[in-house]
């Protein structure tokens, strides 16, 4: 099952954007990426929601499938069902709430335990537009990422700053792994992300 190639469509299961219990902005990030809009009041995600977008890497059209997961503990066992098929994950915290940053370790352990060991994980500090309310320094995010071998970026789902980059960089990383043959995926054209969140 693990990231098996899908012979029919050539989709690969790839990235997981990981946002955790409510409110760090996972769903907003996904909406900004797929629909290019920000919706301030967003429904609480129940279980998992699906989103998709085409991007181009190295002149190749790649379809990203993204699964936006609910952060609450109650959905943990559901969320886990998605780890195994994912090639990547965005692990998101909220720079204005330190507790979401403190929660990262727990989440990371859970993800590493239930996912393909090659899963690309990107750490996202979201809500960078709220500089005045910042509780987590950028340097802290960078340090955490370095320590755990993650890519790091600060984003704002509101202003769209770095949102494209976050998804596309993760996709590129996955794509490289596919090229290297790390993922057993036939070269074409789709990645599944998982969005997880730390809150």
């Amino acid at each position, binding site marked *: *099952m693990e990231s098996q190639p899908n012979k029919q469509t050539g989709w690969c299961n790839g990235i997981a954007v990981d946002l955790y219990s409510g409110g760090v902005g996972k769903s907003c990030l996904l909406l900004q990426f797929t629909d290019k809009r920000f919706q301030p009041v967003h429904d609480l995600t129940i*279980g*998992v929601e699906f989103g*998709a977008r085409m991007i181009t890497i190295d002149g190749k059209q790649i379809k990203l*499938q993204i699964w936006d997961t609910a952060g609450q503990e109650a959905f943990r066992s*559901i969320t886990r069902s998605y780890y195994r098929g994912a090639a990547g994950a965005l692990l998101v915290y909220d720079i204005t709430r330190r507790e979401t940053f403190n929660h990262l370790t727990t989440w990371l352990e859970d993800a590493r335990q239930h996912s393909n060991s090659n899963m690309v994980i990107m750490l996202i500090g979201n809500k960078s537009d709220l500089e005045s309310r910042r509780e987590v320094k950028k340097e802290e995010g960078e340090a955490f990422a370095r320590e755990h071998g993650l890519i790091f970026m600060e984003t704002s789902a509101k202003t769209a700053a770095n949102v494209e980059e976050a998804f596309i960089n993760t996709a590129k990383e996955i794509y490289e792994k596919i090229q290297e043959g790390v993922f057993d995926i036939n070269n074409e054209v789709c990645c599944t992300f998982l969005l997880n969140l730390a809150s």
Partner: protein
Amino acid sequence: MEYFKSGLKSVLGTPQEGSQPTGAETVERLVDRVQSSTLLDDRRDACRALKALSRKFRIEVGAQGMGALCQVLEMDRRDCEIVGYALDTLCNITAPESFEDEEHTSLSLSSVGNIGEQFTEIFIKQPDNVGLVLGFLEEYDFHVRWPAVKLLTSLLDNRPKEIQEIILASPMGVSKLMELLGDSREVIRNDALLLLVQLTKGNANIQKIVAFQSAFDRLFDVISEEGYSDGGIVVEDCLLLMLNLLRNNNSNQNFFKEGSYIQRLAPMFNLPPESDDTGWSAQKVSNILCMLQVVRTLVPPGNPAQLTMSSQKTMKACGLLETLCNILMASGVPADVLTETINTVAEVIRGNQGNQEYFANVMAPSNPPRPAVVVLLMSMVNEKQPFGLRCSVLYCFQCFLFKNEIGQSQLVQTLLPSSTEVVSLTTGQLLCGGLFSGEALSNWFSAVALSYALVENPAQKEQLLRVLLATSIGNQPISLMHQCTMLLLQQGNKVQSKLGLLMLLSTWLAHCPLAVKQFLSIPTSIPYLTAQAGSNEHDDNEKLVQGMCAFLMGICVTFNDDTVTTFSKEKLRQLVEKRLGLETFLDKISEVSKHELYSKAAKHPQFQAKQSSELLLDHEFCCLFKALEGMVIKAVTPKPQGDLVNGSSELSMSPSENSLLLQYKDLIREQDRKLQELTQIIDRLTAEKSTLQAQVDDLTSTISQLRDENMVLRAQTNTGLGQTTDGSTLGHKSWAKSHQLKTDSECKDSLTCKLEEQVTSGTMSDLEARLRSTTMDGTVSTSDTEKELRETQQRLAAAEEKLAELESADSELQKLRKDQEDLLELLTDQDTRLNQLKAQLRALGEKVDDDDEDLEEEGEGYEDEDSA
């Protein structure tokens, strides 16, 4: 209770019937062997024998053997054979249906239905048991995997919610089930399909995980392997699973669309060449109907518009819409397939301009070639066509014109006088023909279809006013509106026709003063409506007609620009008041939404009618009614207070309004007078009070003065001894005076207090109360709204009560179940005790029934039966 008594009888055996052991006794001994034998071979044999008995003696095996069987699953899991027997046995005892050879002598039939459920409940009390069964899905051995699949299916059948949650919570539970679809052994794959169908029912989270695990790919693979619609029932099962995954699940619908699975639907509808008469088997019809359902679940009218739009777009782009339209125009298609295809095309084009335009240009291969729309409408107004098919055409037409201004205007255009002579049959002509048909249903269909050209389209409402129809040669052509009104008069008791026309007219006149004007200028129109709305027939459908007539009158008031002087807004209002009475009139309007078919029609755009008599109200009309009802009521209801505030002329009021106004004025005047009186009283009392207060103050100061004097005098008395007498006399006098003053003042004080009290508490509160009541009278009108609110709350409360009743009934049921279980347990206990006692007796050398010796042989006998 009877169940357990009889169960007891069979467990204990019917006493003294020769030396034959009963089934229960055999079961008991086998269970004992499974549980306590140290040899695997022995346990296995016993388990096999139990399996053989588990249909005939289902209750006995279930009641006594459940523990032993679970123990096998846990302890002997490495031995596929014994696990297979245990799973098979569990399958039998939890089966949702009962077996033909099942023995339940004196059981009431109703309790038989619950046996599987009850054993399921006992089995899942220990959720680990389900985990064990899930684990056996990973065992490749056919004799383990297959019964494990079947057992899970039974469990799901009996206790869907609980099992779904257990599977969701168990690690990779859903994945294990999905793997089964890849099993090369068809039986397992097919049964796994059925299992997944059960598993995904009504649980969005499971549906999403299943979709995530490439369900759609696998299902399409199976479907194409099996030959698409020509495949067997497996294809239907695949489609049923697909339906479960997609129905009401927007996330999965989005995934389906983004995963390009819509493109893979198109080839399913490729029909065999027409010469091929292998044609339409029952299975093929079922398969195609299911596929059409899959298409429809992707674009239901209630879905988020964006999602539906983009799915519709893909359906056209990938040729699916074209394929569907081909079915519409093909010959030899069974009526139910054709009907459902029309419904499907309807939803694929609904509200999507591009698709609607495509549909408008589809030509039927008739001679001469005609637009498909025309051919479809011909079927709709043809009474020989099946009812369902005709409904689907109207639905398709509704969807075709939904948010389609171009289509609406083209339809109206076909009715307008044009410079070019049109020879061919047009949609407009067909519908007008339908209006005049002798068949009520055709009238209804045509009127409603015509109204679709007007929905939310003011321009076409005005255009349609220009339509003139020639009735007979030589006569002046008359307007369509006039025709409709005349038709209405001629319908007599044809309720369906009348309702069709009334819906058409309501849609036409709403928000269109010009149309109202034309309607009011027809001499018979208002008298007809007044007569109908005022009639008093009690039949439900007649009441509906009365209500609709009242509603139409209301529309004439609401959208009246006063250009027809005989029926100006005000005159119509007076007419309502005088001829019908406002209350009655409003009651009649409320009859519309009270009709049993109203809520059905309001809920879904598609017609839900099973037969012609249920076809009275249309969805689009219900939407209009909902939007306008409040406005219409307001327009016909006089609002005296508003007029007062605006100072607007009282001349424009009806006599009744006027008299009401006068009453109000009198009331207010009266209240005003009372208010003034009361204010005067307060003033007087306040004045009195302050006078008294001044007196009190005066007195108080005199007293203190005297006190001072007194003190001085006392001091003098004490020092000047010589003048004692005089001094003391003086002192005395002064004291007496002072005392008197004091009393005096105290008395006045208390009087003041009393007065104060009176003023503040008594009189004031009285005043306040009167003031309050004055204010209240002024707000009578709001109390109506409040009354409504209260009624709604009451209804809500009643509903809640009912819910609570249901809940309590449910908990009672649970209690009963629990009691049953307890009894069952007791039974087993007694049973064990009995055995112990027997054993003791035997040990004491006492002779107990000798069945036990024979049991061994009996057991063997059953095993033979099994292997046979």
